[in-house]
């Protein structure tokens, strides 16, 4: 190797191209290679809006960002160090995110007059000096690929399609990534068309060799493995982790899992994934609508399954009436809301945290439900299990919030030992529990305050339940005023009484006067911002909520220990509203509602302002 090798601690690469350019695949492969190397990783795909736009247009740009480092990282990075732009649209759509000095690798073949005009470039940015501040690497990716594949028995179009593998090869060379698994992957993917597999492998290798030989790249980089807890890892997206968590919940509870779902972006992939795991006695039903989906899930729960429904905001809006029924029936039900930008249809492919209000308050009557939120892709696995645990133990609907950011983003996940997963075994009622051998469906367990789960098929426990107010213990219809008051308070109290872990505070030297409180997917950016501040000697504490109802019992105490509480949210302050009300703490609400995750940098500068003023 004649080229210089430089060590880096962290790199952020963004692959961007047309929807048809295979950028997601390219990014995935790069991520995989990188993971094998032991770096910590965080990824973020960015799909075009819901319809495939015509090729070469700005709305048609698809990108995939991957950050990797020799330490544990929290976000896919605010600003890429490297942009791979497969066409002018990709360059234009992403340039604003690049810091000056970043590397830009462009596919010059696509910078034709027509393509430039299409996205509104008056002159060619590769030539007009407008990219002077960047380190530009013009590479005729398409023609190099086609040339490299000249000897293959494939069409020109097929040869051109392999240009993403050329680019991947080049990047793998540039960052000294291994490539065995990509070659193996390509062999498998195109098992039925070996000539295509070979061509892609050849393109990949041509890209690698191009890096090795061209003058355009003088330096090669290395990023050392990160110090990560020992164990087996895989890279995982939030949606995949939710699906696996639900499968695990079925295994650990020994119950069938029934998913009732209606497709909706960005939640559909949970349905897709779960539909592959029938061997675990997981039933997936694509229902006629969201109401049927949650209804069927509740019906399955009634029958003794773990009933689950997955959706996004508009779907939860439709499910409210049935969730309210589940509150009255006191049956287990897991409702997963992968939030997207609203209101109404909003921006379906963009992330947001604006469904917290609906999860907490969006039902008629006093209809308390448990509300949880996952904070990172891998955390989705644990939180799916936690949602199932609470639903099964306390016989209540549990709403688990995720969002588009962690749903599609990925990070390394330390694979758990199955035996270490929580034991979710449930006990169905089998015997009458009342005087004279009567069965009292609303006689509560003194500890959990849960009512017995007596599934149809159990002799002697025949009983009727419904959405009308029920008499305490007997479950008979009751219009008694005192009983209603009692039942309303009991339903609220039993949710409030569910033990949830105390919130932990990350306040390394205990000197912080400002606490940043977050929930959900802001965990990464908040954490990164806090780290950056601390590295600059500024003390700041971080606490993150995964249980939003009930809230951790120590939260009030935690909040009051700080002079100032800042709550960053991708909404207009929904958690802040709850915190202010509950603890009468004058929390500062910091909000951005752009359909994008916070950048660590913006949080850092916002927090710096706050720190100045305490």
């Amino acid at each position, binding site marked *: 190797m004649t080229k210089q090798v430089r060590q880096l601690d962290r790199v952020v690469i963004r692959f961007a191209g047309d929807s048809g350019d295979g950028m997601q695949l390219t990014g995935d492969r790069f991520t995989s290679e990188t993971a094998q190397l032991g770096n910590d990783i965080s990824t973020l795909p960015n799909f075009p809006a819901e319809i495939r736009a015509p090729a070469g247009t700005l709305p048609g740009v698809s990108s995939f960002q991957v950050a990797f480092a020799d330490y544990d990282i929290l976000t896919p990075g605010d600003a890429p160090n490297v942009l791979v732009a497969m066409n002018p649209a990709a360059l234009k759509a992403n340039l604003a995110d690049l810091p000056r000095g970043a590397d830009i690798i462009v596919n010059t073949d696509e910078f034709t007059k027509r393509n430039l005009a299409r996205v509104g470039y008056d002159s060619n940015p590769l030539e007009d000096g407008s990219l002077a501040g960047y380190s530009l690497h013009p590479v005729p990716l398409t023609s190099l690929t086609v040339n490299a594949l000249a000897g293959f028995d494939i069409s020109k179009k097929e040869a051109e399609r392999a240009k993403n593998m050329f680019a991947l090869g080049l990047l793998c060379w540039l960052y000294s990534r291994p490539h065995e698994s990509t070659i193996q992957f390509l062999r498998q993917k195109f098992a039925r068309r070996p000539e295509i597999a070979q061509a892609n492998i050849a393109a990949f290798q041509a890209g690698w060799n191009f890096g090795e030989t061209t003058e355009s790249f003088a330096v090669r980089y290395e990023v050392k493995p990160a110090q990560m807890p020992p164990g087996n890892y895989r890279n995982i997206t939030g949606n995949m982790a939710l699906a696996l968590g639900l499968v695990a919940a079925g295994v650990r509870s020994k119950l069938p899992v029934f998913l009732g779902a209606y497709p909706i972006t960005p939640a559909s992939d949970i349905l897709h994934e779960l539909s592959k795991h029938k061997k*675990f006695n997981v039933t997936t039903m694509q229902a006629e609508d969201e109401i049927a989906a949650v209804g069927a899930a509740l019906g399955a729960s009634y029958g003794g399954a773990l009933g689950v429904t997955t959706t996004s905001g508009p779907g939860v809006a439709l499910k409210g009436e049935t969730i309210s029924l589940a509150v009255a029936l006191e049956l287990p039900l897991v409702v997963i809301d992968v939030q997207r930008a609203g209101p109404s249809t909003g921006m379906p492919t963009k992330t947001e945290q604006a469904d917290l209000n609906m999860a907490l308050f969006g039902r008629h009557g006093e209809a308390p439900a448990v509300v949880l939120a996952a904070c990172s892709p891998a955390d989705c696995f644990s939180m799916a299990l936690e949602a199932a645990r609470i639903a099964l133990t306390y016989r209540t609907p549990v709403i688990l919030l995720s969002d588009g950011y962690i749903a599609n983003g990925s990070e390394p996940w330390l694979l758990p030992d199955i035996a270490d997963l929580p034991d979710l075994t449930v006990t169905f009622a089998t015997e009458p529990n009342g005087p004279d051998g009567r069965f009292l469906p609303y006689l509560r367990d003194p500890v959990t305050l849960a009512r017995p789960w007596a599934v149809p098929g159990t002799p002697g426990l025949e009983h009727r339940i419904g959405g009308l107010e029920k008499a305490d213990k007997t479950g008979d219809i009751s219009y008694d005023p005192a009983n209603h008051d009692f039942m309303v308070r009991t339903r609220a109290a039993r949710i409030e009484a569910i033990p949830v872990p105390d919130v932990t505070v990350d306040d390394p030297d205990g000197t912080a006067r400002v606490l940043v409180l977050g929930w959900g997917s802001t965990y990464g950016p908040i954490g990164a911002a806090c780290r950056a501040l601390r590295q600059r000697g500024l003390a700041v504490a971080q606490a993150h909520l995964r249980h939003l109802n009930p809230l951790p019992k120590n939260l009030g105490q935690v909040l009051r220990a700080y002079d100032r509480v800042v709550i960053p949210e991708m909404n207009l302050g929904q958690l802040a509203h709850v915190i202010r009300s509950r603890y009468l703490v004058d929390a500062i609400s910091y909000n951005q509602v752009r359909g994008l995750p916070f950048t660590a940098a913006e949080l850092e500068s916002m927090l710096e302002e706050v720190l100045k003023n305490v």
Partner: protein
Amino acid sequence: MSETSVGGPGRLTLSAKDFKTDQEVRWCPGCGDYAILATMQSFLPELGIPKERIVFISGIGCSSRFPYYMDTYGVHSIHGRAPAIATGLATTRPDLSIWVVTGDGDALSIGGNHLIHALRRNVNIKILLFNNRIYGLTKGQYSPTSELGKITKSTPVGSADAPFNPVSLALGAEATFVARAIDSDRKQLATVLRAAAEHQGSAFVEIYQNCNIFNDGAFDILKDPSSRDAALIPLEHGRPLTFGRENQSAVVRAPSGFGLTVRPTSEVSPDEIIVHDETIADPAYAFALSRLPQADLSHTPVGVFRRVSRPTYDGLVREQIATAAADVTDREAELAKLLNSGDTWTIL
């Protein structure tokens, strides 16, 4: 619960009494729902299914109070959603006998979508639609089966929307079993319930039910001894469709060549008379039958219109699961394999 068998293995000695609950029945005195309840309670024992394996799921409406009065498992759910809830239950619990009780508003108004989808899926549930052609529980608004021009609380000068024909709608939704019965004819109702219970898949039964408070006498033409014989067309599999006290009327093809019509038996040749066949695969026949009734309900067929076999949704789904799970012995080990699948790496 006694498990002593009578009349053969697996048969239980249950009686109507065993299916009564301690809840006071709270329909208006004279309501047609009483007769249906009584018929159900006395019919169920003959199925030989233990009480604990029977589930009644209802929506909201007068009719939907039904589960409270059946000493089986039961859910009085929310308006219109019973078919969806029952579908989830039926899919995961093949060992249960699941009955949906619903009203014309519950099933055809707010619940219309779940109904048609349950039927097309052919989920193994029995759907009993108590059709009183009115909203009873909310005190007398018109329903999707009320006749055009109906004057009700919400339509003081008459409704402006033509009703559904529930049987036609069910057939259009690919239903495999469609029948009609009348609250007051306990014997015929029991016959239909029996056939429904035996059917593998969704069984849709429209039951004409008198609401003596808000729509009294809606079906009198089919009940009154002076009119009923001329109005009712009893459907019996394999029997020619003649009716009337002296079988003086017969169902024949309509003159246009399409659909069916009623003619005096004396004026048609015997081989023109349609012989009822529940099992014709093409629903066109049952559909044609469903169009016979006139606006005043004369020429109303009662009995089983259609009964054909088609795989059930829940059956197919369970088959897929069984196939997939067939060689899983240790689920925890399998789970470990699943979690560890894909590109994994090890940090030491």
